[in-house]
C-alpha cells in the first residue's frame, strides 16, 4: 500500500467522522443541553384544547333526531347486532337507569355536542361533552384500570409524521432520524367500555369493542379551526367489519354555548 493511498484513506475517514459528528449534533437539537424528557403536554405538537362545537353535516337525520327502530343504514352491522337493534326499547333503558347508552365513547363524538378539551395534568387530556354531561380522559403512556363504564380506558399518544429521509440510504443505515416536521395527530385507543349504542336507536357496540381515534386540527387560512375525529370502531360481536367515520367540530371562542344536559334515551 503506497503512501498516497494511505493518505487518501485517512482523509476519507476524517470526513466520515466529521460528518457523523456534525449530524449527531444536528439531530440532537444543535447541541441543546440535555434535560428531563418532555411531558405529553409539553411535547404536544398540535393544540386541541378549548371549546369545540360539532357541525352535524353528515348522517344528519340520524344524529339530530332519534331514528326509528331498525334503521341502521350505513352501519356495517352484524346479524347479532341487528337482533339487538331490532329489540331496542328506550323505556327499558330508562327503567334500568341506562339512559346514557348512546353517550359512551364509541357513540359520544357523533352526538350533536360541544366539547371542552383541557389538560387535566401533564399526562392527561380531559374531553368533556355537554350533551349527556360526559367526560373522557385520554391518558398518555400505558393507562391501567378496570374500565367498565361508558367511556372506558383511553390510551393516548402523539402520532407524528415520521420522515425516514436519512435512515435508509440505499440500505445503509446512518443511524439518524431527523426531528419530525411540525404538526401531527393525537391517537387515542379506547377499550373496556360498557356496552352502548353507536346510534341513539339502539344500534349496539359490545364490551369487546376497540375504538381507535385520530384527532387532527385544521386551520382554514383566514377562517375557522376544525377538529377532525377519525374513528375506527372494531367490534367482533356486533359489527361485520371495522366501522369508519369522520366527525368534525368547529372551534369556538369561549364557553358561552356550553349547555350541559342529561342523557336522554329516546
Amino acid at each position, binding site marked *: *500500500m*503506497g503512501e*498516497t*493511498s494511505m493518505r*487518501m*484513506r485517512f*482523509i*476519507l475517514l476524517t*470526513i*466520515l467522522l466529521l*460528518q457523523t459528528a456534525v*449530524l449527531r449534533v*444536528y439531530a440532537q437539537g444543535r447541541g441543546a443541553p440535555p434535560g428531563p424528557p418532555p411531558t405529553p403536554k409539553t411535547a404536544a*405538537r398540535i393544540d386541541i384544547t378549548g371549546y369545540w*362545537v360539532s*357541525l*352535524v353535516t*353528515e*348522517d*344528519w*337525520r340520524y344524529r*339530530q*333526531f332519534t*331514528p*326509528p327502530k331498525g334503521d341502521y*343504514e350505513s352501519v356495517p352491522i352484524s346479524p347479532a347486532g341487528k337482533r339487538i337493534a331490532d329489540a331496542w326499547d328506550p323505556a327499558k333503558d330508562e327503567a334500568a337507569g341506562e339512559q346514557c347508552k348512546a353517550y359512551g365513547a364509541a357513540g359520544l363524538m357523533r352526538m*350533536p*355536542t*360541544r366539547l371542552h378539551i383541557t389538560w387535566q395534568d401533564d399526562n392527561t387530556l380531559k374531553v368533556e361533552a*355537554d*350533551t349527556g354531561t360526559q367526560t373522557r380522559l385520554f391518558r398518555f403512556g400505558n393507562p391501567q384500570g378496570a374500565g367498565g363504564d361508558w367511556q372506558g380506558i383511553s390510551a393516548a399518544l402523539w402520532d*407524528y*409524521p415520521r*420522515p425516514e*429521509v*436519512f435512515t435508509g*440510504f440505499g440500505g445503509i443505515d*446512518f443511524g439518524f432520524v431527523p*426531528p419530525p*416536521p*411540525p*404538526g*401531527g*395527530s393525537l391517537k387515542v385507543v379506547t377499550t373496556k367500555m360498557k356496552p352502548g349504542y353507536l346510534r341513539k336507536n339502539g344500534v349496539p357496540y359490545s364490551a369487546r369493542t376497540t375504538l381507535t381515534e*385520530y384527532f*387532527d386540527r*385544521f386551520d*382554514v*387560512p383566514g*377562517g*375557522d379551526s*376544525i377538529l*377532525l375525529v*377519525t374513528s*375506527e370502531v372494531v367490534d367482533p360481536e356486533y359489527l361485520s367489519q371495522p*366501522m*369508519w367515520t*369522520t*366527525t*368534525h367540530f368547529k372551534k369556538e371562542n369561549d364557553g358561552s354555548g356550553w349547555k350541559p344536559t342529561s342523557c336522554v334515551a329516546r
Partner: protein
Amino acid sequence: MKGAMKMKYKLSFFFAVLMIGTVLYGQGRGPAAFNIDLTGMWTPPLHEDALERGNGPELADYGGFALNEAGRLWALSYNPSRLTLRNHQCDAYVLPYQMRAVGNFRIWEERDPNNQRLIAIHMWAQTTEGRRTVWMDGRPHPPAWAPHTYKGFSTGRFVGNQLVITTTHLKQGWLRRNGSPESDQATVVEFLVRHGDHLADTTVVTDPVFLTEPEIRSNDYVRQEGDHGAWLYACDDGEEVLGRPPDAVPNYLFGKQPFAREYSKMYNLPFVASLSGAESMYPGFGAKVRNSTDADGEAKLKPTPNAPSETSKAVDPETRDGEIHVLRVRDNVYVLVGDGGNIVVQTGDEGAFVVDSGEGKLSDKVIAAVRQLTPRPIQFIANTSVHAEHVGGNAKLAAAGSDLSLPGSFFDLQSPTAATGLFNDPATHATMIAHNNVSARLGDAKAPAAMVPGDTFLEERRRKFHNGEVIEMFYEPNAVTDGDSIVHFRKSDVIAAGDVFTTTQYPFIDLKNGGSVQGEIKALNHILSLIGYEHQGEGGTYVVPGHGYLSDEHEVTEYRDMVVIVRDRIQDMINGGATLQQVKAARPTADYDTRYGANGGPWTTEMFIEAVYTSLKQGK
C-alpha cells in the same frame, strides 16, 4: 499511481454521498418538506350517509346544509328531470360532491424527471370519470376571467402531516344530488390526512351565493391493495325525452314542489327541519324545532314576499384596472378583457378578425394588445350588438386597421377619400360587419359614421373563410336587441356570444331596441346547438360571453335554464292575472339574485323582471 487514482474515485464517491445526505437532511428539516404518500387506489367505506351517497338522496332533504334563502329556493325549484335534457345528461360532479360521492378513485404523482420535485398530484374518480389535478409546484391560480371546470383549479402544499388544497374556478353544481346547489363562485379548502391505510379528506366550501357559512364535511377512504378494474366510460348524451319543446326546462314553481313534504313525512321529522339552513347543523336543533308547525315549513317553500332584493355576490371578472388583459382561448383565438365588453381576436396569415370593440375607453391599449398578437392589421370588426360596450371602440380600431383585401380593388376607388365616397370602410380602415339593425340603430342614434358598420347582412348568417377557418356570424333575432349576432370560429371551435350570454348579470333584454325573452331563450338554445363538449359536459367548444369569464356548454346551459325558469314563473303569474307590481313583490328571481342581481347600475333585477313581464304580455 493507479491505486491513488482508485482511492481518489472512492473518496469522491463517499464525499458525494455524504453531501447528498446532508442536503437531503437539511431539506428534511424544512417545515413543509414531508411528502405524505397519497398514491394508490382508494374506496370510501360509506359508513356515513350511505343511502344518500349510493342510491340517492330524498328531495327536499337539505338538513345540515347552511343554505341561504337563494340556495334553498334553488334546490326546491330543481326538478331531477332536468337531467334528461341533452345539455345536462353528462354533467359531472363538482369537486366537493365528487369527494363525497360513491365510487373508487386512484391517486398518482407527477414528478419532474430531472429533479424528482413534485409537480402535481392527480386523481381519477370512478363516478363521472372525475379527473382532477392538484398543482404542487407553486403556480398561481388563474385570473377571474379564466374558465371554470367541475373540479376547479387546485393548488396544494404539505403542512406537517396534512395536504392542504385550495380550489377556485369551479362550475355550478351540487352539494348533494337532490339539487342542493353549489355556485360557480364557491371556493374549497381541503385538508387530507392519512392514518395508515385510511385517508380523510375534510372539505370546507365557502359559497357567497348559496351559503350563509362555510359547509364543512369530512370524507374517508380505505386504501385498496390493487386496481378494482371497474372503471367507467365517458358519458355520451342521447335522446331521452322525444318531442319536448326546445325551451322546456323541468322545474318546480315556487311553493309548488310536489315532494317537499315527502322526506319529513317518511321519517317523521318536523316539516321545517330540513329546510332550516345553518341552524340545522348545530347542537340543540332537534329540540328547537320539536314544536314547530307546518306553517313554519310552508313559509320556507317560497321567497319572503316584499323582502329587499339581494344583489350578486359573485366576483367581478371584469378588471376595471385600466389595462387590457389577454387570454388565449384556443389556437389563434384570444379574448381581450378590460374595456367594458369582452373583445375576441382571431389572428393568422391574414389580418386580425376582431369581434366587438369594447367601450372605446381603452382602444389604444386594445390596438397595442392586438399588435402583440399579430404583425398584421385589424382587418375585420364584427359587432354582436348595438350596445355601447360592443361598438364603442369601432372608430379607433377600424382606423388603426386595414382591410387587406381592398387596396387596389374596385372598392378602394369608392372610398370617402376617392371621388365617389360610396363606402364607409375604405382600404385604409378595417371593415366593420354587423347585422343591418345594428347599423340602422346607430344611424338612428346619430352615431359618428366612423363607428357604423358598413358591411351588413339581413338574415340568418354571414360567412367568411379567414385565417384558415370558416367564421360564421349568426343573426339571433329579437334576443337582447333586434340586431344581435354570435360569431362562431369553426376550426378553433370558439363562439363569441355577445350579450346573448354573460356570466355577470341577467340578460339585458332591451325592449326598446327590439329585444324579447323568447328571442333570448331561442338564441341561447341556438348557441347550445352549436356546442360540443370534450369530456363529461365540459371543455370542447368555448364560449366567450359578452361580459364575464370564458365558458363552455355548462355555463350557457345554466344561464338558459335560469332565463326559462324565470320566464315560467312570471308567465304563471301572468296567467293568474298578476300585475307587474304583484310579480315584483313575489320575487320571481329570488334564487338567482345572489348570483346575477343588481339594485343599481344600468341593468337592475327590477328592470329584468319588468322586461320579461312586458315581453310576455306582448307575446314575445
